[in-house]
């Protein structure tokens, strides 16, 4: 199928338009439109997974992408600088492909999970579909400008989705979310301007043509003696401008990821967001941050990535351990999962910092598997919340006897999240730790103890998950308010429909990790090699 990626982006936009045109009373029809649009997205996503050719071993980034679409969009003559070229440039490689498929899946599940919505249905599904399109757009855009547009375009729907359909403190949480992420994205904007003014080529008339193409930036087609060209000799406060550009990008993306100390918006947003939005937030939106680190921060600034490997790894380690410890102190299950997300995203930082093929592949695997697992965990909490409108751990006890099927899923996902072998969470974390501990002997970027301390994170996560299980699900059956008793029924068919696919995938990727690791292997290999080579070259300039 031609233009597969464009279809993936624009089908939800078309769906949003369609929902907007329906009269207010037809709420069921709106839900069906949303479901159909996201289902088509899922089918296309699976098609992408199947058709993706993992055997391509690229020599440069310009060869690494498949399903490429390139249409010139804007060409401007900018003052005396030259020309500015913005393209509608899409493509996927081993980094973005799994994330696209993951998003497509979670988007469908999100629609199913919001099926019982009764309030302002039209606005909800319009925003939801706009969000879906922009999310996919973010992962497949290969033009920095296009990426940035999609990146910002996610904020507004998310702001309203949390702010209108959220919990009691929704307005606080939504503003906080918006401010944090907008701050991050403006840091990215500054670097984007610098990068495009530093990247490009000359056309046949000798005019300078500046481009936003991420591929050219990753391949290092910098214009000599511009501010962000390697070895250009521009310094600010004792460090090169490339160093500061990396730092700005890094902060911009770890706000989204999120990592300590920029994580505080996440618990608030998660607690207040409706279940489906929590699923998307944890499952997909956080991955945009990780993806940005891979694609932009690391691939374009490999020299600084090498220079700063140790601090980044330490930051990852702190996120892992601190996030886990804070999670243990939580009484609200959603908050607990939010902090555990911080902890698990720390593994992404750690694996990426290691720049070994295990570490990097592990980081990507961790992102995908965390997408399934955290999405599922929020759904699981949603099940309780739907019944009781309360999420306190103390409020319930001994649910295992009353809701055995539900408890089965809870146990499965808790164990997956704490890294039980055989489930997908284990693979990612194991690979990351192998990579991190091995970094000292392979490329010597940072010392062993960082990885070793990070192992603690797994133990801590076992601590809080098992403790939660014990308090809520085992022991004598008890509910805080007697009115809840009647509502404590086991899973409905709709809930089965949401949880089962995620459970199967968690198991599948846990037992056969090669399903995911094989197609991305070549890209990961190339990512690591080119980063280390390029980085050394740039550093020697």
């Amino acid at each position, binding site marked *: 199928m031609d233009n597969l990626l464009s279809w993936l982006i624009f089908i939800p936009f078309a769906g949003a338009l369609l929902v907007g045109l329906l009269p207010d009373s037809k709420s069921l029809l709106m839900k069906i439109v949303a479901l159909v649009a996201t289902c088509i997205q899922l089918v296309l996503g699976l098609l992408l997974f199947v058709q993706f050719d993992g055997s391509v071993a690229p020599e440069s980034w310009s060869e690494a992408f498949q399903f490429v679409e390139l249409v010139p969009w804007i060409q401007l003559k900018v003052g005396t600088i030259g020309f500015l070229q913005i393209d509608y440039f899409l493509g996927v490689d081993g980094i973005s492909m799994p994330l696209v498929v993951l998003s497509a899946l979670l988007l469908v599940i999100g629609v199913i999970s919001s099926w019982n919505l009764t309030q302002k249905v039209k606005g909800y599904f319009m925003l939801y579909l706009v969000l879906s399109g922009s999310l996919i757009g973010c992962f497949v855009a290969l033009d920095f400008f296009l990426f*940035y547009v999609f990146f910002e375009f996610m904020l507004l729907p998310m702001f309203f989705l949390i702010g209108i359909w959220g919990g009691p403190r929704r307005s606080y949480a939504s503003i906080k979310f918006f*401010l944090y992420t907008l701050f991050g994205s403006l840091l990215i904007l500054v670097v984007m301007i610098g990068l495009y003014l530093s990247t490009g080529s000359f056309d046949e008339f000798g005019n300078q043509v500046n481009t936003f193409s991420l591929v050219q930036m990753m391949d290092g087609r910098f214009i000599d003696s511009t501010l962000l060209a390697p070895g250009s000799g521009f310094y600010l406060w004792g460090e090169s401008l490339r160093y500061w550009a990396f730092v700005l990008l890094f902060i911009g993306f770890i706000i989204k990821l999120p990592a300590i100390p920029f994580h505080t918006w996440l618990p608030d947003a998660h607690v207040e967001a409706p279940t489906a939005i929590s699923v998307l937030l944890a499952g997909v939106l956080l991955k945009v941050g990780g993806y940005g680190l891979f694609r932009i921060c690391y691939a374009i600034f490999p020299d600084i990535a090498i220079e700063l490997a140790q601090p980044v790894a330490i930051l990852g380690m702190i996120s892992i351990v601190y996030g886990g410890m804070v999670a243990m102190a939580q009484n609200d299950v959603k908050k607990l999962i939010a902090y555990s997300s911080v902890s698990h995203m720390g593994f992404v930082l750690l694996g990426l910092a290691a720049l070994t093929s295990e570490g990097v592949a592990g980081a990507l695997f961790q992102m995908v598997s965390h997408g399934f697992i955290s999405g599922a965990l929020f759904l699981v909490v949603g099940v309780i919340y739907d019944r009781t409108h309360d999420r306190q751990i103390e409020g319930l006890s001994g649910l295992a006897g009353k809701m055995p099927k539900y408890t089965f899923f809870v146990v499965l996902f808790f164990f997956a999240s704490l890294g039980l072998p055989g489930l997908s969470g284990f693979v990612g974390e194991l690979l990351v730790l192998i990579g991190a501990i091995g970094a000292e002997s392979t490329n010597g970027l940072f010392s062993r103890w960082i990885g070793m301390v990070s192992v603690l994170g797994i133990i801590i996560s076992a601590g809080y998950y098992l403790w939660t299980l014990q308090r809520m699900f085992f022991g004598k059956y008890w509910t805080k308010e007697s009115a809840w008793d009647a509502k404590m029924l086991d899973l409905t068919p709709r809930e089965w429909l949401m949880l089962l696919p995620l459970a199967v995938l968690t198991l599948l990727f846990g037992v056969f990790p090669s399903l995911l690791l094989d197609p991305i292997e070549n890209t990961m290999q190339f990512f690591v090699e080119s980063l280390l080579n390029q980085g050394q070259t740039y550093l020697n300039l």
Partner: protein
Amino acid sequence: MLADQLQDILGSLSALSFEIGLLAGALLLLILGMLVKSRIAFKIAYVVVLIAGLLLIRFEDNGLMLFNENLAIDDLGAILKALLVFAGIWIVFFPTSENHGSEFYFLILSVIVGSSFMLSANNLLVIYLVVELTSFASYTLTNFNFEKKSYEAGIKYLLFGGVSSALALYGASILYGYSGTLTLSEFNFGLLENDYFLNVGMLLFVGGLLFKVSIVPFHIWVPSTYEATPTEAVTILSIVPKIAGLVLLNRVLDSLDMMGQSWLLLSITILGIATIGIGTLGALRQTNVKRMIAYGAIAHSGFLLAAVLIPYQNGLQAFVWYSVVYSIMNIVVFYLISIFESKGITEVHQFAGLSSKEAYLGGVVVVVMIALIGLPPTAGFTIKFYLFTMMWEWYQAVGDPWMLTYLLVAVVSVVFSLFFYLKVPYFLFLKDGQNQNYSRSSISQRAIATIFTLLVLWLFFSPEILNNIANNINFLDW
């Protein structure tokens, strides 16, 4: 000799057909006001005058000196005159503009004429005269709501304006004393650059202009004036004199030869940074929508000033981009304010829960506010992006750390501006409130708002048209 001068005057008059046309139209409008009492007739006459003026605008690729170099016309001026007229036309659609007599439109036309002269003034005294022409009309417009508040604002505006124009006049006299000429393009202070008294003169004269374009610390009149003035007049005040004043400022700075490294240029740069900062921070605490937008407009002045400070073609191109989109955004935001004002809604909290009755217009408000913040996919993002590009380029060219600071402050201010611009959508959609008596906006109102909103979106997706305009202007170095 005399014959030559007469020839010059006669030849020059024909080049001023736009200004003369508008002036004649303004006078006719006053006479019409004595004969007819129909409000609609005034509006129609006003629009006819503006459109006639639009047709009279003259483009001169290579520029033309008029009246013994007292005035000069060029492409940039012509384009911006068209923009001023365009901004002027839309105010007749404002729902709050129902009760104005012919004198109101006369004054608006005076502001537009004064501002178009500002675009061509090349002589210190002419500058003084046309700035006063614009200002006097503006002072009077401020009082047209005939309330206690508007008198207060009018007096405030008048006092500030009077003092700053007196100081500017003093500054002009110093400049004249040093140079021996009133003509800007003949200034040559190259050797005297560090003379203390000359610098004072420059500062005073430039200060008078900074007052017109609401740069900190000359911005104090802005919020209360915007709040008390009829919304359609605010639209004009926030666009027309500001754009003209900044072009004039650019020319004055150019001719004072301060584009080199002088402390005066540095202090204006710092004032620009302060303008963005104070405009943004001041808006945070506002509860009245017009005051809030007024502070936002102050911040926008800081952005426009950055474009003025970047020398040569690059800065002016960014300026053209910014001013076109800024005008469109301001027209639509004040149009929306006017719609809500006509239903008695002026405070932010009054918007609470309106989305249940006004969901569509609420959506339009969101897009417009997003544009004012400067987020994609709106042209508000494009212009900020373009401006930041030019600032980065200038920083790369000369390595001036203040330009980098300017850029960073401008970027950070966007985060803060999110906070206040989003207040209205926030109350509209996120808060619950009682609006029993609220009557929905009419279809025509929604249609006009939609047209402008689509324009803001369209200019994001295909900015080529703006780029063509900006690139076809032959920027002249006077």
